[in-house]
């Protein structure tokens, strides 16, 4: 039975689709932000594997078709980016500078943490892309020799944390401007945070969405330069 589930061509993909829908349903029913569908699906997936005694390597192999779609899906992030750039062209320079400041803060503080805890290169680059969107972050981690699976977990948890803390952090930092709020949410907690930004208002949501792609690209560039510091 374990062998059947480990090798079945459609079980892994079906399980992922089912888990995500179950997670989305749970979120809608309870309205609790920490029950993010992706977080719930990952936890549920771990549960299913432990229950059926399927090891995660064969599950990942069976789910290969999903990974294959990741590159074209990431390429398509250009579509929302293009839609949003037209909306906020007026603030282009301030936006870019703000996002760049956030990316610099992220990379420098991860560097400091890596130095304090005397982490090796693999550990450092695993945490480096933690604030950017999963699609880009997991590839940055892989390219630099990090542990991709841990990067994904850390990115998702960062997103959920940003989603939950967006409102209190806006008050703490006295962010009243919707454009500044959008930059803060999108740069610090990517797509999962953006879900919260969209609930605030349209401008915050659009700017947050735009910040996902821009901070992702800036982080790729910075990681190419600073990835070898540790």
């Amino acid at each position, binding site marked *: 039975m374990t062998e059947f589930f480990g090798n079945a061509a459609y079980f892994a993909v079906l399980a992922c689709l089912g888990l*995500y829908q179950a997670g989305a349903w749970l979120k809608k029913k309870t309205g609790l932000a920490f029950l993010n569908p*992706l977080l719930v*699906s*990952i936890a549920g*997936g771990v549960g299913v*594997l432990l229950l059926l005694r399927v090891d*995660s390597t064969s*599950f*990942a192999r069976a*789910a290969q078709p999903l990974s294959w779609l990741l*590159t*074209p*899906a*990431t*390429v*398509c992030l*250009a*579509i929302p980016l*293009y839609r949003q750039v037209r909306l906020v062209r007026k603030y282009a*320079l301030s*936006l870019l*500078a*703000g996002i760049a*400041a*956030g*990316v610099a*803060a*992220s990379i420098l*503080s991860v560097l400091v*943490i*890596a130095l*304090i*805890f005397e982490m090796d290169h693999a*550990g450092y680059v695993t*945490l480096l892309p*933690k*604030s950017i969107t999963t*699609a*880009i972050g997991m*590839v940055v981690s892989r*390219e630099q020799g990090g*542990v991709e*699976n*841990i990067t*994904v*977990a*850390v990115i998702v948890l*960062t997103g959920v*944390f940003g989603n939950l*803390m967006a409102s209190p*952090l806006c008050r703490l*930092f006295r962010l009243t*401007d919707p454009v500044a709020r959008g*930059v*803060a949410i999108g*740069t610090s*907690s990517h797509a999962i945070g953006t879900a919260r930004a969209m609930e605030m208002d349209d401008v915050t949501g659009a700017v947050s969405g735009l910040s996902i792609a821009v901070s992702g*690209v800036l982080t*790729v*560039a910075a990681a190419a330069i600073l990835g070898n510091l540790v």
Partner: protein
Amino acid sequence: MKYLRQFGLILLFSFLGEALRALIPLPVPASIYGMALLFLALAAGMPLSAVEDTGDFLIEIMPVLFIPAGVGVLGCWGELKAMLLPAVLCVTLVTCLVFGVSGCATQALIRRERLRGGNGK
């Protein structure tokens, strides 16, 4: 034929990204090159309708594509345990810091811009 054409076009940009990735010796993922090329094509006048429907579908299913990698954390529990504290600090402290720095910088810059715009009128 609509979806076939759109999906074909998206795969073309993915492939161009792959080609650039092979040509340029930098640790930049193929998807980033593809995304930049698609953005430039749209900015240069390619209609959104040429990729929009299939693109929105792919973006909708994107979170599902991360589940296998996320579940894979089960296989590297040992490595995660070794870096648990720095990882927790990154998720909490660094996220707050990035939030504050990017938000405050943007707000200050926009206010300055508006002030200048106001003086101009």
